[in-house]
C-alpha cells in the first residue's frame, strides 16, 4: 500500500534544525529543533502565542506569502522542505504530509458531498477509476470507525456531527497513506468522550500504518498520554524537550514545572487545597438555589425539541455545585433559565427559598443583586467601547446602588478584590489579556455583592496557567464572601477539585447527581463512567497517581 520505498533506509522521518520564523519584524520562532521518528508521536505544547501553530505552518509551507519568512532546515525524509518551491511542496502535501485542522466544521466545503471531496484525496493515491476510488474511500471510512460509510459518502457536511466530521477529515488525511500527519489541536473542538475515540483512532492508525504524528496541543494531560516526545514552547523558543515520561516525571525548567503544576487532571490536589476549609463551614439549612423539574421546549418546525426535560438540583449556601455535560446536554439552557435570560416552560426555580418562576421584571431586577453570571468567553462579554471602570460600574448604575461616589468607591474595592490595580480603570478590553478580561468580568459580576455566581465555563477560553490563576481567585473570593457557585464545565478533572456536588446532564436530563466524591469514585450511571474514563490522564500511568483526601464535602442535593 505504501508509496514511499525509501522508508526502510532511514528511521528518521522529520528533522527540524534551527528553525526561525519572522512575521515582518517579529521574530516569532527562534532556533527550534526537534526530531520525529517513523511511527512515533511528538507533541508541540505551549500556550497561545507560543509559536506552535507557526511551526506547523512553516513545516507545511503555509506561511503567509510576503509577510512570513522561515529560515533553517526542515528535513522530511532527507529533503529540506524549506528549500522547495510551492510547486515542489505540492507533491508532498496531501500525499506524504497529511494535515488535520482544528475545527472540522470549517475545513470541508459545505455545498459539496463528503464523497465528492473524498475523491480529491483519492486522486492523490494513484488509484484511478471512480469505482475503485469509491471502494477505497468507503473502506477507509470504515477503518476510521464511521458507521454507515455509504451514508456518510452521500452526506453533506452539515448533516454530520462534529465528531463524525473529524473522522471524515482523518479518513481523508490517511487515505493517501501519508508518512507524517500534522494534527493541529485535532480534538479541542470536540466533547471529551468523542475526543477519546478520535485520539484512540489516531493512535491505532499510527501504529498500524507506521505513520509519524506531530500533535499540536495546549492540553498537557493529553500530550503526556498520547505522545512519545514532547517539545515545550514559550514565546517561540523551546523551553524543554525530551521523552514524555521523563519530562513529566522530572521537568527541568521552571516554566515546564509551572505548566505541569497547573493542569487539573495531573494534580488532583491543586485546587482542592485552596478551598478545603469552606465546605465544612457551609452548614446552612436554607439552599441558595433550588431548581425543581424545570422544562424548556423549543419549537423547531413541527418538531418539539426538549432542550431541558425535568431538571432538578439544589445548591447549599456557600458550596459549589457543578453542572457537567457535553454539548447539547442542556446545561447552557438550564443556566440561561436560572439567570432569567429564558423562561422555563414548566417547573420552579427558587433563590433562597423564594420562587422566581412568575415574577415581574422588577422582581427579576432585584434577583440580579443576588445572582450574577460570568460568561465563558471574556473576549465577547465585555463591551469593547467601554472602559474597565464603566464596565464594572454598569450593574451598580443600572440597579441604583448608592450615589455616584459610592459606586466609584465600590468599583475600586471590587477591582482590588480581583487582583487588579487602579491603572486598569481607564483601559479598554482590547488593552487587556484574556486573564485580565476574565478578572474584570468577575469584578462586574461581584460589584453588587451577589450571594450566588453562575460560572459558565469560566476558564475554558483561557490558557492553562491563566486558568489556574482564575480558579485560585474564585476559590479565594468564595472563602472571603461565602459565595455560592454554580459551576458549568466540561472539564471533569477541574470539576472534581472545585465542586462539592455534581449533576451530570445528558440530553436535557440529569443522569446522575451527588457529592463530587461519590460521582468520581463510584459513578453509577454508564454515561458518567464513560465521561470519567475519557479524562486524559485518569488512565495514564505517567502521573504520580491520585491520592484521595479525607472526605469533607457536603451533599446538598436531595435528588433521586
Amino acid at each position, binding site marked *: 500500500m505504501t508509496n514511499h520505498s525509501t522508508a526502510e533506509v532511514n528511521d528518521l522521518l522529520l528533522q527540524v534544525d534551527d528553525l526561525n520564523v519572522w512575521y515582518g519584524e517579529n521574530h516569532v520562532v527562534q532556533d527550534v529543533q526537534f526530531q520525529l521518528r517513523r511511527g512515533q508521536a511528538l507533541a508541540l505544547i505551549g500556550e497561545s502565542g507560543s509559536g506552535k501553530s507557526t511551526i506547523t505552518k512553516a513545516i507545511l509551507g503555509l506561511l503567509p506569502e510576503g509577510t512570513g519568512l522561515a529560515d533553517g532546515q526542515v528535513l522530511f525524509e532527507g529533503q529540506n522542505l524549506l528549500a522547495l518551491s510551492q510547486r515542489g511542496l505540492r507533491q508532498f502535501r496531501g500525499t506524504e504530509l497529511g494535515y488535520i485542522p482544528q475545527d472540522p466544521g470549517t475545513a470541508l466545503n459545505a455545498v459539496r458531498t463528503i464523497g465528492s471531496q473524498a475523491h480529491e484525496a483519492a486522486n492523490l493515491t494513484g488509484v484511478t477509476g471512480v469505482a475503485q476510488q469509491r471502494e477505497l474511500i468507503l473502506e477507509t471510512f470504515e477503518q476510521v470507525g464511521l458507521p454507515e460509510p455509504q451514508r456518510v459518502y452521500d452526506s453533506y457536511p452539515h448533516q454530520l456531527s462534529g465528531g463524525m466530521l473529524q473522522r471524515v477529515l482523518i479518513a481523508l488525511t490517511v487515505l493517501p497513506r501519508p508518512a507524517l500527519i500534522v494534527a493541529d489541536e485535532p480534538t479541542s473542538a470536540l466533547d471529551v468522550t468523542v475526543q477519546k475515540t478520535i485520539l484512540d483512532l489516531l493512535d491505532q492508525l499510527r501504529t498500524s500504518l507506521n505513520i509519524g504524528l506531530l500533535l499540536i496541543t495546549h492540553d498537557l494531560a493529553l500530550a503526556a498520554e498520547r505522545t512519545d516526545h514532547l517539545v515545550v514552547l514559550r514565546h517561540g523558543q523551546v523551553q524543554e524537550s525530551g521523552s514524555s515520561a521523563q519530562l513529566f516525571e522530572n521537568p527541568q525548567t521552571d516554566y515546564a514545572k509551572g505548566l505541569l503544576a497547573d493542569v487539573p487532571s495531573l494534580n488532583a490536589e491543586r485546587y482542592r487545597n485552596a478551598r478545603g476549609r469552606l465546605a465544612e463551614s457551609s452548614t446552612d439549612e436554607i439552599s441558595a438555589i433550588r431548581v425543581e423539574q424545570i422544562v424548556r421546549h423549543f419549537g423547531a418546525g413541527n418538531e418539539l425539541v426538549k432542550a431541558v426535560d425535568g431538571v432538578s438540583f439544589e445548591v447549599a449556601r456557600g458550596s459549589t455545585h457543578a453542572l457537567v455535560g457535553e454539548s447539547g446536554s442542556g446545561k447552557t439552557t438550564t443556566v440561561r433559565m436560572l439567570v432569567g*435570560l429564558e423562561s422555563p416552560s414548566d417547573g420552579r426555580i427558587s433563590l433562597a427559598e423564594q420562587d422566581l418562576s412568575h415574577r415581574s421584571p422588577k422582581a427579576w431586577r432585584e434577583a*440580579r443583586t443576588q445572582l450574577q453570571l460570568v460568561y465563558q468567553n471574556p473576549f465577547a462579554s465585555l463591551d469593547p467601547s467601554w472602559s474597565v471602570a464603566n464596565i464594572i460600574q*454598569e450593574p451598580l448604575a443600572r440597579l441604583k446602588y448608592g450615589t455616584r461616589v459610592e459606586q466609584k468607591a465600590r468599583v475600586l474595592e471590587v477591582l482590588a478584590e480581583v487582583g487588579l490595580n487602579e491603572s486598569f480603570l481607564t483601559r479598554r478590553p482590547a488593552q487587556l489579556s484574556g486573564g485580565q478580561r476574565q478578572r474584570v468580568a468577575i469584578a462586574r459580576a461581584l460589584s453588587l455583592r451577589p450571594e450566588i455566581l453562575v460560572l459558565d465555563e469560566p476558564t475554558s477560553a483561557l490558557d492553562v496557567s491563566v486558568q489556574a490563576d482564575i480558579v485560585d481567585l474564585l476559590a479565594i473570593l468564595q472563602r472571603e464572601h461565602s459565595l455560592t457557585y454554580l459551576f458549568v464545565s466540561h472539564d471533569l478533572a477541574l470539576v472534581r477539585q472545585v465542586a462539592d456536588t455534581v449533576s451530570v446532564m445528558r440530553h436535557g436530563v440529569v443522569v446522575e447527581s451527588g457529592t463530587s466524591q461519590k460521582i468520581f469514585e463510584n459513578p453509577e450511571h454508564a454515561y458518567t463512567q464513560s465521561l470519567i474514563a475519557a479524562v486524559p490522564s485518569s488512565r495514564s500511568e505517567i502521573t504520580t497517581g491520585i491520592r484521595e483526601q479525607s472526605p469533607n464535602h457536603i451533599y446538598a442535593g436531595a435528588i433521586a
Partner: protein
Amino acid sequence: MTGILQVQATLETKSSPAKKRSSLPISAIISFAVIVLVVLFSAFPTFFTSHSPEVGDTSAKLVSPGLQHWFGTDYLGRDVFSRVVHGSLSSVSSALVAVLIGLVVGSGIGLVAGFLGGWVDSALGRIIDVLLAIPGFLLAVVIVSSLGFQTINAAIATGVSAIAVFGRLMRAEVIKVRGATYVESSFLSGGNRLQALFFHVLPNAGRSVLVLAILQFGTSIMVIASLAFLGYGDPPPSSDWGLLVASGKEYPTAPWLIYAPAAVIVATVLSVNRISRWLKKVR
C-alpha cells in the same frame, strides 16, 4: 455647525491607539490641512481676501490669475478667489445639512429595523430597498424640483437620497452587535432594552456609520455642486462652487473661471475621502 465634522474627526483620532496616531501618513496630514482651510474659509472669509465677492471692478474683467487676483477675475471683474472663499460657507454647510439628514434619519431607520427585527425590519427594509432602487442623483433632482430651486432644498434633497445608504449600513451593524454577549450581559446587569440600545448597540454599531458620514460629506459636496451647476441652487449673485463652474463655462477664453473653483471642489472631496479611509484603517 461647521465644527461638528472636526469634533467627530478628533474624537476618532483620540480613541485610536497612540502608536497608530503617531504614524499619520503625509497624505492624511495634507488632507486635514485642506479641510481645515476650507472650514476657515467658511468661518472667516474676510480674513483671506479683501476683495468683494459681489462688486467687481469692470475695468479689470477676465484678468488671468496673478498676484493681484489669485484665481483671476470674471466677466464683471469680480475676484474669483474671493467668490470661491465666500461661496464655501454655503457649499460646506449645505453638505453638512445633507449628511446630518442622511445620518439622523437613515441611522434611525436602520437602528429601529435592526434592533426590533421582525415585521418592523421587513417593512423598513422594503422602504430602504425602494430608496436604493432609485438613482440617488435622480431622486435629488426630483425632490429639489418639487421643493423649489434653493441651495437649502438641494441640501435636503441630497440628504434624503443618502438615507438608504445610512439605513442599510446601520441595520447591518446593529444586527451584528445586537447578538453580542456583552449586550446580553447588560440585561443581567439590570439594564433594559433601551439602555442596551443606547449604551451598547449604538456606540459599537455607530463607528462605521460615522466613517461613512465623513465619506458621505465629500459625496454631498459633489452632489450639491452638481445641482448648483444645473441651476437647482441659489441663483446668482450667490457663489456656490457648482454655480461658479456653471457660469464659468460661458467664457472659454477664460478657463480659470472653471478650473479654479473645480480644483477647490476636487481638493476638498479627495481630502475628505482620504480622511475617511484613514479613519477606517485606524480605528
